[in-house]
C-alpha cells in the first residue's frame, strides 16, 4: 500500500510543480462555471431557465375590452421580468421590428376584435383573430408569446362561452324574450363572463418521472449544463492525464519501477490515484462554484459527493485503459480527445440527452458521461442517494472492469 502511495505522491508532486498546468487544472473549472453562470442566470440570481425580457411588439387596433386585456397582460407587473413590451400603432412598423430581429414577435390585435367576439353573442359566426407575426430566429420566445396570448384568448373564450351559455339557457327556459335579448344580453354576458374570467376549477399538479414535483414545465438549462460541462471537462483532463503513464514508459522510468519489486497493480494504482484526486478536485470546484455563484441545485451533498467519486473513478478507468493500449504519448492525446468528444456528444453533453435518438442514448451507457448526467439530473430534480444507486453501481463496475483490462495489458507488455 505504501508503494502505491509513494507513486501517487510522486505524481502529485510532479503535477503540482508545473505551475502553468496547475493553473489550467484549477482555473479552467472556474472559467467554465463562470461561463455557465453567465449563460443561465447572471451572478447572484436563482438558476433556472433564464429567458427574460422578451422583446414583444404590441399593436392594438381594437377599441374594446378584450384588446385592452391582451395588452395589459403583456404589460402586467407579474410578467415584467419576462417581457419587454413595446406599443406601436402601425402593424407594418411592428412587423419591421420583427424582421430586423429587434422583436421576438408582433402581437397584432385587429380593429373590432372585441366587437367580433361580442357579436357572437347575438348572431353570426364572425371570428376574431389575433395575429402573431413571429421571428423565426427566436422560436422559444415566440412560443412563450404564443402561449401567453393563447391563455388570454382562452379566458376570453371562456367568458364568451359563459355569456353565451347563460343567455341561451335563459332563452331556452323561456325566461328571456329573444327580442329583448339584444338589450339585456350584453349585461348578462358581461357578468357571466366576469365570473368565469379568472375562475379555475381544475388545478394541475405536474409530476415528472422520478416522482418529483416540478415548478415549471420549462427545461432547466443551468441544472442540465452545469453537470454536463463538468463531466465533459473531466473526461478531457483524465484522458490527457493518462499521457504521463506513457511518458514514463517512453523515458524508461516505468521499467525501472518494475525492476524494483513492485506489483503491476501497485504501479497502476499509484499513478491513477493522482489523476483520480485531481479529477475529484476539479468536479468539486465546479459543483461548489456553480452552487454558490448561480444557485444551481446539484442535490443532497452526500449523494453528489458519491456520484462525483463514482464518475471520476469510471473516467479514470478509461484514461488508464487508453494509456495501456496506446503506443505513444501522441496517440494518447489524440485518442483521448476523440473518446472525450464521442462520449460527450453521445451522452448528451452538447445537445440535451432527451433530444438524441433512443438507440444513441442506449449506446452511450458505455460512457461515464451518460450515467453521470442521468444521475446528476435525477439529483437536481429532487432525487436522493437511493435514486442514483444504480448509476453509482454501474460506474463502479465500469471503473473496475477497465482497471482489470488495463492490468492485463500491462502485464503482457512487461513480460
Amino acid at each position, binding site marked *: 500500500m505504501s508503494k502505491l502511495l509513494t507513486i501517487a505522491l510522486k505524481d502529485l508532486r510532479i503535477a503540482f510543480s508545473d505551475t502553468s498546468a496547475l493553473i489550467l487544472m484549477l482555473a479552467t473549472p472556474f*472559467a*467554465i462555471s463562470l*461561463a455557465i453562470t453567465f*449563460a443561465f442566470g*447572471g451572478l447572484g440570481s436563482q438558476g433556472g*431557465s*433564464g429567458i427574460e*425580457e422578451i422583446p414583444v411588439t404590441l399593436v392594438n387596433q381594437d377599441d374594446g375590452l*378584450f384588446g385592452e386585456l391582451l395588452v395589459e397582460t403583456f404589460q402586467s407587473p407579474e410578467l415584467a421580468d419576462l417581457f419587454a413590451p413595446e406599443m406601436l400603432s402601425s402593424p407594418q412598423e411592428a412587423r419591421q421590428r*420583427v424582421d430586423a430581429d429587434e422583436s421576438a414577435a408582433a402581437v397584432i390585435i385587429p380593429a373590432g376584435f372585441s366587437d367580433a367576439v361580442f357579436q357572437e353573442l347575438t348572431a353570426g359566426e364572425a*371570428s*376574431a*383573430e*389575433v*395575429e*402573431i*407575426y413571429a421571428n*423565426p*430566429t427566436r*422560436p422559444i*420566445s415566440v412560443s412563450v408569446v404564443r402561449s401567453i*396570448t*393563447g391563455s388570454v*384568448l382562452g379566458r376570453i*373564450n371562456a367568458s*364568451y*362561452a*359563459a*355569456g*353565451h*351559455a*347563460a343567455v*341561451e*339557457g*335563459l332563452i331556452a*327556459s323561456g*325566461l*328571456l324574450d329573444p327580442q329583448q335579448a339584444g338589450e339585456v344580453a350584453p349585461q348578462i354576458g358581461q357578468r357571466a363572463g366576469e*365570473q*368565469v374570467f379568472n*375562475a*379555475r*376549477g*381544475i388545478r*394541475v*399538479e*405536474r*409530476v*415528472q*418521472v422520478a416522482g418529483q414535483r416540478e415548478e415549471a*414545465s420549462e*427545461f432547466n438549462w443551468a441544472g442540465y449544463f452545469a453537470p454536463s460541462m463538468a463531466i465533459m471537462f473531466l473526461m*478531457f483532463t483524465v484522458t490527457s492525464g493518462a*499521457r504521463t503513464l506513457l511518458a514514463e514508459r517512453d523515458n524508461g522510468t516505468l521499467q525501472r519501477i518494475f525492476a524494483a519489486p513492485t506489483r503491476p497493480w501497485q504501479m497502476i494504482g499509484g499513478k491513477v490515484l493522482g489523476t483520480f484526486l485531481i479529477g475529484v478536485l476539479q468536479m468539486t470546484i465546479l459543483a461548489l462554484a456553480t452552487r454558490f455563484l448561480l444557485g444551481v441545485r446539484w442535490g443532497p451533498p452526500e449523494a453528489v459527493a458519491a456520484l462525483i467519486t463514482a464518475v471520476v473513478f469510471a473516467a479514470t478507468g478509461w484514461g488508464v485503459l487508453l494509456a495501456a493500449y496506446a503506443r505513444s504519448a501522441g496517440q494518447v492525446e489524440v485518442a483521448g480527445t*476523440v473518446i472525450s468528444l464521442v462520449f460527450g456528444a453521445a451522452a448528451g453533453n*452538447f*445537445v440535451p440527452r*432527451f433530444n*438524441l435518438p433512443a438507440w*444513441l442514448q442506449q449506446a452511450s451507457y458505455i460512457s461515464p458521461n451518460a450515467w453521470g448526467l442521468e444521475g446528476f439530473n435525477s439529483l437536481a430534480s429532487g432525487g436522493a442517494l437511493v435514486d442514483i444507486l444504480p448509476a453509482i453501481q454501474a460506474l463502479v463496475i465500469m471503473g473496475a472492469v477497465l482497471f482489470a483490462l488495463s492490468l492485463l495489458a500491462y502485464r503482457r507488455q512487461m513480460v
Partner: protein
Amino acid sequence: MKVLTIALNDLKMEFSERTTLVFFLLIPLAFTFAIAQGLGGSGGSSGGPDLYPVAVVDEDGSMLAEQVIQALQKTPDLQAALLSADQAAAALEDGEALAVLTLPAGFGEALAKGQDVPVRLERASDELEARAAAQAVENGLARVDSAVQAALAAVNERRRFQDFPDAEAEQAFFDDRLDAALRTLQNPPASLRMTQSESAAGSADEIDAATQASSGQLVTWTLFTLLGVSDMFVGERLLGTLRRLIASPTRPSTVLLGKLVGRLAMGWTQMAILILFGGLVLGVNWGRSPLALLVVAVSFSLAAVAFGVMIGAFAKTRGQAGGLTTLCALLLAALGGAWWPLEITPQVYQALVKALPTTWAMFGFNEVILRGADVRAVLPEAGMMLVFAALFFIISIPRLRFA
C-alpha cells in the same frame, strides 16, 4: 507556388495519420446524423408521431370525469386511453404512454360545486414529445374547466331570474349548459394566427429542431479543425522544421500563408461535406441562398483559423496547444449559441458574448437558415467576423516565432 507546396505538405501530414479522418469526418457526420434523427427525423419536419399516446386514470367515475375523458379523446393531437392505475404506471414506464392524468375520487363533485380540484399529470420524461403530450392534456383540461365554469355561471344567471324547482332540474340545466359550452369551445370566437417573415424558410408552425441544431454542429466541429492550426505551428516550431523553412529562401509570410491555406482547405472541405450530407441525406434546411451560406461559412472560417494562429503564437508546447484548442473550441461553440439557444440567456450575457466570433457565426447561420436571408442581409455578420479575423492576426503575427 510555394504557398501551395506548403499547404499540400501540411495536408499530407495531417492525413497521414489515420486518426485525423476520424476526427475530421466520421465523428461530425455521425453526430449530425444522430442529432438529426433524434430531433427531426429524415423528413425534416418537426417530427414526432401524429398522435401522442396518453393514459387517463379515472378514480372518480363521475359524469364530469367522463366529460374530461371524452374531451381528451376528441383532442386531435392525443390518443387517450382509459387505464387502471397500475396499467397506467406500467405504460408510463414502458414508454407506451407519454403522460398519465389521474382524476381523483371526488373530482366531479368538487368541480361541480365550483371548488378547486387538484389533478395529477405525470410526464414520462423531459423529451420534447412528452412535454408536448402533457401540454396537450393540459389544454384539453383547460377547455373542460372553462366549460364547467361557463355552465356554473349560466346556472347563476338563471337563478337570478328564477329559482330552480328542484335539484334535478338544476342538474339538468347544468348538464345542458355544459354541453352547450363544450360545443362553443370547440369553435371559439377568439383565435390566433401565426405568421412570419415571408422569405423565411419553412412555415411558422414548423420549427425544425434539427435545422436549428445543424448550424450549431457545423460550427462546433469545424472549429476543432480550424483551431487545430495552432498545433501545427507549435509542433513544427519544436520539430525545427519551421526554423528550417525560414533558413531557406522562403519568406515568413509565404510560410504563414501556406499553412493557412492548407488548414482552410481542410475546414472548407469539412463544412462542405457536412452541409451537403445534412442537406441531401438528412433533409436539413440550409436556407434559400447558397451564396449567403457561403459568405457566412467563409468569414467564420477565417476568424476561426486566425484564432488558431493566435493560440499557436502563445502556446509553448504541443500539450498546451492541444489543450487550449480543445478548451477554446468547446467554450467558443457553447457560449456562442451552438449548443443552447441564445434567446434563453439573460440580456447581459447576450451582450457580452457578442465579443466572440462564434456568436456572430451563429447569428449569420440563423439568418440564412431560419430567415432565408440573402447575401446582403448577412453582410454585417460576415463583416464582423472578418474584423475578428483581422484582430486575431494583428495580435498573433508579430508574436509568431519560427524558431
